[in-house]
């Protein structure tokens, strides 16, 4: 799995591409943790753009869960956006779309993020 990064004015956007399965989960988790650790000073929000994510296994869901918790502890806004139908189904079936904030597209996710940089 490949991960691209984009830094906006008030948000860091991660764009994972391909399949987030058990094998890819550990590497992805490390990347997300790094971004969250750096986000405290750099930007107010971390957004994961899932438009290029084809598949998420339960191990992948766990990374999103851990990231949500870590962001809450650190007071960083964290959200997912632009889920493909297959990934959306996994989130809906597992109930994760009820506990992780998911937006329809990136524009909405950015608009929902806090408008002032995090202290």
């Amino acid at each position: 799995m490949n991960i691209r990064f984009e830094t906006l004015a008030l948000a860091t956007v991660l764009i994972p591409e391909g399949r987030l399965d058990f094998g890819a989960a550990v590497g992805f988790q490390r990347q997300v943790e790094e971004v969250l650790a750096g986000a405290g000073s750099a930007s107010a929000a971390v957004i994961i753009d899932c438009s290029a994510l084809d598949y998420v296994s339960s191990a992948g869901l766990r990374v999103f869960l851990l990231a949500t918790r870590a962001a809450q502890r650190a007071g960083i806004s964290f959200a997912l956006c632009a889920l493909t139908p297959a990934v959306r189904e996994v989130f809906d079936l597992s109930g994760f779309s009820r506990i992780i904030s998911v937006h329809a597209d990136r524009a909405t996710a950015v608009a929902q993020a806090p408008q002032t940089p995090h202290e």
Partner: protein
Amino acid sequence: MRLGATVQESRGSAQDRAQRDRESRLPISVVAARRATQAATAPVRGLAELLLLRPGPYARVFENLILALIVLSVASIGVEAIPGLPAWATRALRVEEMAVVAVFSLEYLLRIVAARGKLAFIFSFHGLVDLLAIAPFYLAGVDARWLRVLRLLRLLRVLKLQTHILEATVAERTRELADKNAALEQAQAQIKAELDVARALQLAILPATFPAKPGCDGAARMIPATTMGGDFYDFIELSDGQIGLAIADVAGKGVPAAFFMAVARTNLRDLAARHADPGACLAQTNELLCAQNPMDLFVTVFYCVFDPRTGVLRYANAGHNPPYVRRADGSIEMLGGAGGVALGVMPGGVFPDHTVRLLPGDRLVLYTDGVTEAFNAADEAYGTQRLLAEVQAHGDGTAAALIERICRSVTSFAGTAPQSDDITLTVLTRQAP
């Protein structure tokens, strides 16, 4: 065996023939000289093999002898420099020098013979140092004016010492590495053996047979993935004649998932006996799992309570793939009510109960995503459609037979691609009373 031998013989004779052909073009004297050289070098090659190449007592003694002579010769260069040395001492030093050079020359010769690439050795650092260590002795006879300079050159024998020490260090490191590798391999074998035991235990705690009850037939199967997984199923005989059925999938893989699976299954089984409603049973299991979840793992669970007398199936779903009901007429329904949060994620979860009635001939199919997300070599998933096609095509036969058919279909679809996730299936058929 016979054929192989024949081929080898014919290849051997072909080589001989080629050799003869090449030699037939050469003058007889050259051939004879080459043959003679080969015959003469054979014992030298044997000696090189014994003293340099093959590790053993001879090689060790030879190596130590060389080291001792290097030290001795460097020391005697120092002694030589002392002015007014008595004549007997000078003679002794001369004899010692000759002996040293003789052994070094032998060593140099043997190293050339033993080397795979002879020129490469001669021009290597090691080869040049060896040559410079003995060259002054031979050249001294040619022109005495160079004697003083050449004698100084003998000090280069210190470099010889360095190459020997380097070699010894490399050999030592290689040995250490080999030892460490062996220890690592042993540790790995032990871990693998323990994992195999753990996996066998994991399979053993799953019920092997469905409770024998009139009016229903059930079966289940779990095919563990290559790494330890966290799927499980369960049949629980409840006190009022009903049967609890569960299928579950723990997030991730490996030992943590397997542990979490064991804890989840034990809690669920325990609570199933105390809570008549599936939703309440899941909610209580969730509280217990959340209270003891240091790794932030979670498990999706579908749990239902089936009454074989009435065919009523009450169920609740905590984040699991919705099961399917195949009606006797071949139609297929997905059991709604999915979307409950997986267990272990957060306390306070509510799991509403739903009800469906199975009529005689109807069957319930529970599965984990190891079935639908079995990938083939072309990276395509088995998918729900293929699963449903199998379910629809096989309305008759036992529950076990349907599971067997689905498993065969999945494995033949996946082909040579490795099984990345546990494959778990449970089928319940209501029979005419």
